[in-house]
């Protein structure tokens, strides 16, 4: 580890220097920092490091093993690529947030105990939200707040789980867990929120499209993949996850198919890809876990590439709404090519996604889940349609919206180019990625049948798209949004809250008013009798004083003699 600084923390601490450096130096520094981290990690041994006792808990800040290493590598790579993509950006806050966020993600991956995990977990939430706010629009601000609350919500669930765990076992070690008690359930839900499980997923398509051009690229890499990692670490082989994952793989596609905002389309398809990984975690076999790791690795790359391409479009055109784009291949030919490579990388042979995804699919098939396998097949065809073909088509071809602009800035081209190269290299030379995987499993992706079958899948998906477009069955891109589960907390909950307030508030206010009035009345009443002119404060004539004496004496005598 570099200078004895744990991975992750290197980036986080390194961030503190960023605001002190002038422009160009700063960019160089920001690029070198994750590079240095990657270099340090490459030479790292496996094991648990820096352990110490805090309170009564054994803290293991760094645990390096096969699984964490894969994620560590790809997170560093993603950080480098994202930084390059953001070279043109001079927003200090965004720069710092991006690096710190990457660092938190890396830190979380190497966390060996729940407390460390919780710390990085929350750090991811708090740093990443800046990338959304950096868009500096009202809607970005609101989306950021929603995002933050949900992310922190995941954090506090994790905290609750960890607390219960500590309460039950006295230990906060982060190892494989089994469902069955409240603690592990809470932890699973915490992971599930960041992993965008169905009904917890809305933060993803809500926030990512609202983030800044460069922010989304950062965002797409870390949070969800980190969640996949912790699931793979904590809950491998949990059957429930298979069904959850299958649902996740399928339903976001329907939204992706009709959504207008192309970055939202990507967000939904990201959600769908997570489903594949969750299924892999649920299957839990060595092959499946390998699939999860490989898929996460590849997915970070190609999803970054797609988000970069859309980011470039947003940066140049100012919008990524399908209804307003089209024909950009003339203005942005390179971006178009990179985007196509990104789309191809989802599952085309010779590209990264192909060699990764098939691991999961065959793991599911091997363990005998036919329905799940069918769903995954459906999802894998569908995702190519919506996140590959649809994106490329609507952004760069389709109906020429008449928008003309410059090609993406050079740094973006470099970033996209590098990512594209990585996608291809990994796809062409599969052993390289496979050698990084945590488990030793012999798997050969490039069999004839596999390649042909995959090509069939892709081409028939494209055929379907072509036919649908040609015969105008494909829903046209229009300016609109589609209701998702987030209506519960964006619409219904506020309405319910307002309704309750409108019920309670008048009563409460009138109660306070009554109280105040009552108090005033009481004082007024007292004043009538006790005020300077009141009966009790007036100077009585001597005679009536004497009368009172007599009365009292009489009274006493009466009592005594009776």
């Amino acid at each position, binding site marked *: 580890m570099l200078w004895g600084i744990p991975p992750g923390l290197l980036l986080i601490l390194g961030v503190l220097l960023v605001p002190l450096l002038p422009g160009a130096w700063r960019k160089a520094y920001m690029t070198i920092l994750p590079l240095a981290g990657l270099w340090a990690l490459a030479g790292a041994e496996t094991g648990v490091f820096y352990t110490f006792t805090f309170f009564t808990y054994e803290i293991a800040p760094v645990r390096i093993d096969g699984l964490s290493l894969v994620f560590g590598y790809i997170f560093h790579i993603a950080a480098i690529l994202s930084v390059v993509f953001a070279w043109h950006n001079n927003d200090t806050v965004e720069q710092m947030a991006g690096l710190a966020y990457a660092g938190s993600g890396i830190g979380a991956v190497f966390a060996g105990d729940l407390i460390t995990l919780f710390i990085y977990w929350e750090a991811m939430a708090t740093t990443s939200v800046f990338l959304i706010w950096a868009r500096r629009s009202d809607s970005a601000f609101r989306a950021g707040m929603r995002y933050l609350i949900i992310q922190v919500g995941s954090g506090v669930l994790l905290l609750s789980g960890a607390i219960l765990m500590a309460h039950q076992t006295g230990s906060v070690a982060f190892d494989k867990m089994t469902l069955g008690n409240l603690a592990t359930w809470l932890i699973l839900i915490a992971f599930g929120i960041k992993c965008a499980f169905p009904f917890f997923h809305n933060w993803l398509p809500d926030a990512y499209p609202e983030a800044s051009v460069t922010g989304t690229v950062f965002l797409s890499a870390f949070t969800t993949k980190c969640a996949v990692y912790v699931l793979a670490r904590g809950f491998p082989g949990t059957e429930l996850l298979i069904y959850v994952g299958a649902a996740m793989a399928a339903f976001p596609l329907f939204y992706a198919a009709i959504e207008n905002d192309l970055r939202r389309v990507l967000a939904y398809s990201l959600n769908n890809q997570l489903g594949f990984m969750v299924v892999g975690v649920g299957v839990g076999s060595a092959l499946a876990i390998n699939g999860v790791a490989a898929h996460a690795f590849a997915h970070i790359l190609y999803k970054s590439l797609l988000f970069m391409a859309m980011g470039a479009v947003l940066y140049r055109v100012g919008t990524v709404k399908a209804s307003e784009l089209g024909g950009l291949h003339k203005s942005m030919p390179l971006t178009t090519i990179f985007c196509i490579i990104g789309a191809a990388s989802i599952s085309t042979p010779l590209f990264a996604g192909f060699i990764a995804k098939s691991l999961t699919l065959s793991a599911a098939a091997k363990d005998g889940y036919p329905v799940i396998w069918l769903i995954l097949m459906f999802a894998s065809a569908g995702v190519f349609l919506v996140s590959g073909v649809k994106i490329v088509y609507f952004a760069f071809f389709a109906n020429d919206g008449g928008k003309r602009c410059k090609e993406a800035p050079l740094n973006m081209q470099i970033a996209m180019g590098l990512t594209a190269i990585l996608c291809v290299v990994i796809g062409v030379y599969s052993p390289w990625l496979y050698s990084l995987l945590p488990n030793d499993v012999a798997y050969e992706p490039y069999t004839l049948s596999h390649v042909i079958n995959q090509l069939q899948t892709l081409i028939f998906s494209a055929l379907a798209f072509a036919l649908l477009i040609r015969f105008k069955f494909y829903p046209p891109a229009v300016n609109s949004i589609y209701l998702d589960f987030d209506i519960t907390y964006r619409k219904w909950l506020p309405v319910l809250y307002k309704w309750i307030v409108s019920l309670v508030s008048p009563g409460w206010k009138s109660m306070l008013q009554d109280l105040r009035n009552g108090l005033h009345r009481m004082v007024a009443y*007292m*004043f009538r009798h*006790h*005020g*300077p002119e*009141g009966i*009790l*404060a007036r*100077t*009585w004539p*001597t005679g009536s*004083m*004497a009368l*009172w*004496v007599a009365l*009292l*004496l009489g*009274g*006493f*005598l009466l*009592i*005594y*003699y009776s």
Partner: protein
Amino acid sequence: MLLAHLPALVIVIPLICAPLCVLLRGKDWAFIVALLATWASFACSVLLTIQVMKVGTISYAMGGWAPPYGIEIRLDALNVFILLIVSGIGSVVAPYARNSLLLEHIEERAYMFYCAYLLCLCGLMGVAVTGDAFNLFVFLEISSLSSYVLIALGSDRRALTAAYQYLVMGTIGATFIVIAVGLLYQATGTLNMADIANRLPEAGYTNRTVIAAFAFMVIGAGLKIAIFPLHQWLPNAYTYAPNIVSAFLAATATKVSVYILLRFVFSVFGVEFSFVSLPTAIPLLVLAVLAMFLPSIVACFQTNVKRVLAYSSVAQIGYMVLGLGFVSVAGLTASILHLFNHALMKGALFLVLGAVFYRIGSCNIDRMAGLAKQMPWTMAAFVGGGLSLIGVPLTAGFISKWYLILAALEKGWWYIVVLIVVSSLIAVVYVFRVIEAAYFRDAPDDLVNVAEAPISLLAPAWILVFANFYFGVETSISVGIAERAAQSLMGAG
């Protein structure tokens, strides 16, 4: 052997010095005589207290005639405590007289004041020391008559009517007392209080004469104490009297009257008669509770701060009667303790108001606005006394409330506890009204350049304020004596 005659000396000194003031005429000479006389009696009281605490009850036969035929001076813990209060307050107040009187336009009649003052002191102390029922009446009249004079000295014209009312009511009260004494004499054939106490059981608890005597005594003393609703003479008398007189009377006169009630009800008639055979406790408790509330609320609405304090006195008397009504050692301890503590706090507050009046010629709450800036020491003393009046811990007022509430808890009467607490809160209101005005309002335009009160006024006030704090922290003396007095009254000591 002067020490042996201390019990007599303590009242004889002011008695002799009173005419001396008139004879000397000069206001400075009269002042010096009065000052020396009060201090001498205070010294005697202190010595007596020490003696009593050491050897127990002292009996002194006036002129050598042995009781029950001669006049007996009888001193137990309660007597010396009262003695201590009266002479103590007297000697703190006396030096104040010089300056306070100056402003109230009676300096040419100053010797008259000192004479009346000494007579009043003598009378009050006489009540406290005598063991003879009729004598007690005589001393009471001495003090009352002189206090009418003192009140009438007030610069406000209304002082005269107030004094007149006080005279009428006081006379009624005194008459009731003398009627009671007469009836007792009829029933027992003696005037010595200890003797009466001994012979009463023979006369029988159902004897109508004795019961009538008891009723007259309670009402008579109650009138002098200003038990609600017999308090009507008090607010005016205290308000319009010269400030020094208000301070002196508020701190002593009512206390002595409470002593009379205690002495007769507990020692002479006895607990058995007063509370077991007759239902005295309940009416007293009811009156006490009313007193704790109604005058307190009235005090909240008053604009003249002296009047606020006067009504507050009526309320505080409620506490004393309440403790008495518990008919327990704890209750009596609280009652007697409050007697002492209330003398300290009210004395202090009235002295402070004297200082205020000296500078701004008014005790109106609006005139006192913003005064804390100009007269910081004076108002600080007011705050000190006020805190004690509320019953804030570390002040004397807290200790008496502490015992009062403990007594109520001992009885299991938690609702009384609630009432005590609530009435304390009302005290917070009227005290803070004044503090708020003095500290947080701006002074009226014509009063922005008021000087601090002279040291001769401040020193006595601060001595009493200090006493309030001292007896709030170091309670062994006050609580010690009060406990012993209570035990002896309940017949346990």
